[in-house]
């Protein structure tokens, strides 16, 4: 390593108000190297990376340290010099594909802008380069794409376009800030592979900012782990993942879901919930003078959930897994099919049976921020389902609420408002609310996907523990195969509204039959692979 580093950051500090969000961080990067900047939310990884481009949000400023890029001291640059550096020197890809492209400008205008600004090429040369780059990122019809607007593309496509826009300028350094977090597993894989190819072709170095250790193992040679603004550990990714030295890194690695031993499930147990040929069709927006375009979300799905087991439904976005869960609970009307609960048919027409079923079922939502009424305190939120428990008096209810809060580790939080809680705590409240009536069946819809790694593990473990303790059956909907591996007894794989494969966890993971299942497993990064 005698070569001069492309980027070296020394003692970088960033403050928001009087709070240090990045505290004397140092790292360096060789040309062409892919380095991962790892940390959970609030660790300061994004701020550290953005300081390099001097693109900190208002109110946040760099308070110390040196950043030398390509032999130049960035902290000494004038705004105009800095602008000249952005783009051709350092490019950046953002997390949220829905808002990182300007909705009001055509793709062509946004692609061409950087070239026009920095390279001053003739118009047709710019167009040629754009077309070429779009083809390179596997956009089918580059000409049409140039005239189109961002909203016409899916998230994965937008992220490719984004990548194209940045790579057009052939930067020496690419900052990729959680570029695939919002995408599903398969798309994530495609986009990242593309990014790696492109940067390798151009000799571009990459700082991959991520919270996903799996990605670190697969794509980055080196990694820097940050916690609360400080670097806690840095070095080759392999070492960090397989032999973490620092307690925090160890926790982080330890938080990765792991497949435990399979639980014995009586194969002949009578299912508690039985779904047959369920179909869900969304009518699509009705328009006058025009036929609507119905969306066929669930196409004849049959499933059995047995008492006390966790059945995971996995699939990419748009596979219909969430709709399936909602339809089983009767929140979304089914067009056809039957649902049996404890042996009796639940028809939407039989309101009494429907109600009995409702009272015995619960749902845990994905987004802990929108699933709790912001105006209610934790106690009342958790107590609310007991409104319908006619056999309990006030004291019994209070005792139950206290008990459940204790179970989820939130004893003493009853008087808080949701906004005073962290994401993990909120999800615990949501779990407490779901379990307070001691339901026989719980649908958990991506209950951990919005949480940080360590929190994910805590919540997952909690759910697992409670499930074992109370023995409720659970339909666990997730796109995260690692989490599924940890919690599920059986797995159903969904693709485009159909269940393509069902089986025990180990059967699915070790011996997948369907091509889609295999692709999913292949795309989902696991640390175990690194060790092998």
């Amino acid at each position, binding site marked *: 390593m005698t070569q001069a580093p492309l980027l070296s950051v020394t003692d970088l500090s960033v403050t928001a108000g009087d709070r240090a969000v990045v505290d004397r961080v140092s790292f360096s990067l060789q040309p062409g190297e892919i380095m991962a900047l790892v940390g959970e939310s609030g660790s300061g990884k994004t701020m550290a990376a953005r300081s390099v481009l001097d693109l900190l949000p208002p109110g946040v400023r760099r308070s110390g340290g040196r950043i030398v890029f390509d032999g130049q001291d960035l902290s000494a640059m004038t705004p105009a010099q800095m602008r000249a550096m952005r783009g051709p020197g350092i490019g950046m890809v953002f997390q949220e594909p829905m808002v990182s492209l300007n909705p009001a400008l055509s793709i062509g205008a946004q692609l061409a802008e950087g070239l026009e600004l920095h390279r001053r090429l003739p118009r047709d040369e710019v167009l040629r380069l754009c077309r070429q780059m779009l083809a390179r990122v596997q956009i089918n019809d580059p000409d049409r794409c140039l005239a189109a607007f961002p909203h016409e593309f899916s998230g994965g496509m937008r992220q490719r376009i984004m990548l194209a826009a940045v790579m057009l300028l052939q930067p020496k350094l690419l900052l990729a800030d959680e570029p695939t977090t919002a995408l599903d597993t398969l798309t994530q894989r495609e986009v990242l592979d593309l990014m790696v190819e492109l940067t390798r072709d151009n000799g571009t170095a990459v700082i991959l900012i991520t919270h996903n250790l799996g990605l670190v193992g697969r794509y980055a040679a080196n990694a820097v782990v940050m916690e609360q603004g400080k670097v806690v550990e840095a070095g080759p990714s392999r070492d960090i993942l397989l032999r973490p030295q620092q307690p925090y890194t160890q926790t982080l690695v330890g938080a990765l879901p792991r497949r435990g031993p399979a639980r014995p499930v009586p194969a002949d147990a009578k299912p508690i919930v039985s779904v047959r040929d369920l179909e869900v069709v969304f009518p699509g927006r009705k328009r006058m003078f025009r036929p609507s375009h119905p969306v066929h979300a669930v196409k004849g799905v049959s499933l059995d959930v047995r008492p006390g087991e966790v059945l995971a439904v996995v699939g990419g976005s748009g596979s219909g897994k969430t709709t399936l869960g909602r339809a089983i609970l009767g*929140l979304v009307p089914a067009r056809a099919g039957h649902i049996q609960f404890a042996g009796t048919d639940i028809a939407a027409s039989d309101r009494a049976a429907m109600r009995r079923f*409702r009272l015995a079922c*619960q749902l845990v939502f994905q987004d802990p921020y*929108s*699933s709790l009424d912001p*105006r209610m305190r934790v106690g009342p939120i958790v107590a609310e389902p007991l409104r319908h428990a006619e056999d309990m008096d006030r004291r019994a209810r209070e005792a139950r609420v206290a008990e459940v809060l204790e179970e989820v580790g939130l004893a003493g939080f009853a008087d808080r408002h949701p906004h005073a809680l962290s994401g993990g705590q909120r999800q615990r409240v949501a779990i407490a*609310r779901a379990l307070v009536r001691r339901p026989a069946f719980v649908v958990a819809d991506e209950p951990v996907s919005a949480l940080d790694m360590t929190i994910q593990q805590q919540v997952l473990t909690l759910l697992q523990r409670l499930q074992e303790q109370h023995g409720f059956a659970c339909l666990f909907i997730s796109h995260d195969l690692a989490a599924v591996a940890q919690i599920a007894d059986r797995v159903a794989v969904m693709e485009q509204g159909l269940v393509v494969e069902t089986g025990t966890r180990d059967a699915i993971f070790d011996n997948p039959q369907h091509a889609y299942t295999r692709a999913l497993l292949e795309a989902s990064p696991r640390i175990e692979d690194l060790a092998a």
Partner: protein
Amino acid sequence: MRVRANAVIGGTLIGLLVAVSATATFWTPYDPLRINLRARLRPPTDLFWLGTDEFGRDVVSRLMAGAATSALVALLTVAAAVILGVVIGVLAGFVRGWLDRVLMAVNDTLLAFPGILLALGLMAVIGPNKWGIILALGLAYSPSVVRVVRATVLSVREREYIEASRVIGNSEVYTMARHVLPNCVAPIVVLATSMFGWVVLAESALSFLGLGVPPPAPTWGNMLSAARPYLDQAPWLSIAPGLCIALTLLGINLLGDALRDKLDPRMGAA
């Protein structure tokens, strides 16, 4: 920073308004209705701080009494508009379907309807007094409340905690009352705040056209309209109530901004 400055200045101005209104209900320097033709159009002196009007009535006393009337009219109007708007907006947003369409058609009709005619018609039915104005302006402003409430209901009802309430087994009505309505409060409060300002303005504009709270009971609006002929001769007569309206509106606007910033922190200091 700004939130606090807004809140402090706005709060002070509105606090002043409330204090003056409250004081005026039991004390004013002179009787605001007391006529003294020998002291017509006196310029401000230490006896009459802001001079006297065309009937020799003390302007300070009338401004104070006017503050009380204006504030009361504005408050009741906002209350009327909010109550009406919330009932209709929640109904339209939650029930949807044909009822929504009918209600929105009526709502659009009201939106396209000039407040003046509404005021005139209602005053003819109710009688020319402040209740007529309150009802007319309340009716004129309720459509905007309906729109905000309906939009909020439509957005709140898509949140997951509404679904959670259904999963729990709560009825639709209960869900609406317990979870939807309370979450509409913030935008309604913000709207109601700015509406208070609009009503003060609308009442004075109506007075200006001769349809506001009928004199001799003073409001800032009818004082301003009565002062028009003396704009040149007795400028204090139009400047004082005009300034009162402007300051009240400023206070309301600042307070509204502070409130909005508090409820929607993205707008405020980062």
